[in-house]
C-alpha cells in the first residue's frame, strides 16, 4: 500500500475485495462487474469505510459480500428503498445500490421508477442477464418475447421485454448509461462517472449468464459503443428509438437538484414532547 501526498493510504482495487470467494458460476459476467466496481472505488480513492453497497436478492445481489465496503444484502427488490434511506441519512457515504434485472425491474420495478423521479444522490448498478439465474432460469422482465428455453415459458414469454433505459428516461433519471461486463476497465470508468454524478445515476450492465443463457456469450460480438452523452431528452429518446439493445455509453446526463430534505429546522425530542400534555 502506498501513500498519497497528504499521507493517506492509497488503496489498490484488491483492497476493496473481501475474503469471501464469489459463488457465481465460473465465467459469469458478474465477476467483471465486481472487478470494475473495485477498480472504480480505488481510482476515486473512496476508502471502503466511506462506501456502502446495498443489494436485494439474486445472484448479482451477492456483490456486497465480496467487497470490503459496508454492505447490506437485504430484501428482494428493495435495494433502492434501503439505499435511498441510507443516502438521505448519511450523505457523507458513497451509496451504491446493486442487483439484477429480476430484482430491480420486477419486484423492485415500482421502486426503480420512483428512484428515477426522486433523484437521491446514489448510484444504481443493474447486472442485466435477462433471466432469473438463482432460481434456475426463468424469464425475467427483460427476457426477449421469443425465449423458449425455460419450461415455464416453452412457447416464449408472450410479453414485451421491458426497456430499462426508456423507463429511466421517461421517469426522470438524470444520469442513464449502459455498459458491458466483459470490458471491466471501460465499465470502471462508467461506474466512476456514475458515482461522481450529483444525483441518481442508473447504469445497466449487460452481464451474461453463461449457465442459463449461454447464447449471451455472443454479446461480445454484438456490444458496441453507441451512445453520446446528451442533456436533451428528445435527443436521448431518439437514441433509444434507434438502439438495438447493445449500444453502450452514457445516454443522458442532465444534473438537476437532488432530493435532500432540509433537516436544519428539525425539532428535538424534548421540544416535541413539550407539545404533549401527559395525563396521568
Amino acid at each position, binding site marked *: 500500500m502506498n501513500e498519497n501526498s497528504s499521507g493517506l493510504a492509497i488503496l489498490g482495487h484488491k483492497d476493496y475485495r473481501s475474503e469471501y*470467494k464469489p459463488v457465481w458460476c465460473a465465467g459469469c459476467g458478474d465477476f467483471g462487474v465486481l472487478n470494475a466496481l473495485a477498480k472504480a472505488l480505488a481510482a476515486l480513492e473512496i476508502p471502503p469505510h466511506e462506501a456502502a453497497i446495498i443489494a436485494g436478492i439474486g445472484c448479482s445481489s451477492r456483490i456486497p459480500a465480496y467487497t470490503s465496503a459496508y454492505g447490506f444484502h437485504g430484501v428482494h427488490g428493495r435495494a433502492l428503498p434501503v439505499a435511498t434511506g441510507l443516502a438521505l441519512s448519511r450523505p457523507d457515504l458513497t451509496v451504491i445500490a446493486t442487483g439484477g434485472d429480476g430484482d430491480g425491474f420486477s419486484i423492485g420495478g415500482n421502486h426503480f421508477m420512483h428512484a428515477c423521479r426522486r433523484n437521491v444522490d446514489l448510484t444504481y448498478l443493474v447486472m442485466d442477464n435477462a433471466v432469473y439465474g438463482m432460481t434456475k432460469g426463468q424469464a425475467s422482465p427483460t427476457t426477449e418475447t421469443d425465449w423458449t428455453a425455460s419450461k415455464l415459458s416453452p412457447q416464449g414469454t408472450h410479453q414485451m421485454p421491458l426497456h430499462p433505459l426508456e423507463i429511466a428516461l421517461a421517469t426522470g433519471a438524470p444520469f442513464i448509461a449502459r455498459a458491458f461486463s466483459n470490458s*471491466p476497465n471501460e465499465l470502471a470508468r462508467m461506474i466512476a462517472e456514475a458515482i461522481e454524478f450529483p444525483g441518481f445515476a442508473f447504469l445497466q450492465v449487460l452481464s451474461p449468464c453463461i*449457465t442459463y443463457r449461454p447464447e449471451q456469450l455472443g454479446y461480445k460480438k454484438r456490444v458496441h459503443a453507441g451512445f453520446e452523452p446528451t442533456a436533451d431528452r428528445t435527443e436521448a429518446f431518439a437514441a433509444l428509438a434507434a438502439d438495438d439493445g447493445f449500444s453502450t455509453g452514457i445516454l443522458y446526463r442532465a444534473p438537476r437538484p437532488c432530493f435532500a430534505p432540509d433537516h436544519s429546522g428539525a425539532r428535538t425530542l424534548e421540544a416535541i414532547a413539550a407539545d404533549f400534555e401527559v395525563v396521568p
Partner: protein
Amino acid sequence: MKPGEDLACFLAHAVVLEDEAASRYDELADAMSVHRNREVEVLFRQMAGYSRMHRDEAIERARAHAGGLPKLKPWEFSWPASESPESGEMSRAHYLMTTRHALELALAAELGALAFYQHIADHGADRIIRALAAEFSAEEAEHAEAIRRWLATTPELPEGWDQDLDPPVEIE
C-alpha cells in the same frame, strides 16, 4: 499517452499487465475452488504465482529504467482490446473445465501479451522502449512455449468430460 511513446508509461503497462493476469488467475482459481475442481484450481494458482513473479520483475525494471511509474486509472491504459492482454478470458471458464482447457486459456493469454509487446517492439517510438519490448516479447514467447510443452504432455480430453449427473443447467 501510449505505451509505445513513453518509457514510464510502457513500464506501467508492463507491471499492470502482469498484475491483472495474476488477479484473473486468482479469480479463476477461486471459481474452481467453489466448484471443487481442485486440479484446475491448483493450476490457476500456479499461474497466478508466475504472474506475480513476473510483475515483481517488471517493477524492478521500472525502478531501474524510469525511477517511478505514472499513476494511471484503469481506463487510462491503452490496451489492444478491452482488457489487459494477459488476463485470461473469464467467459472461457467453466466449472467442469479440465487442465487442458486451463492451459489453453493460459496459452491464449500469453500469446496476447506476446502480440502486445511485439507490436511495440516493431513500432515503438524510441530505441529503449523497442529494446525492452523485444525483451519482454521474447520472455512471453518462452512462457507460451513452456505452456505448449505442458499441453503436449497433457492427456487429450476424455470422452464425456462435460457430463454431470446433477447438472445446474436443468432449466425449470
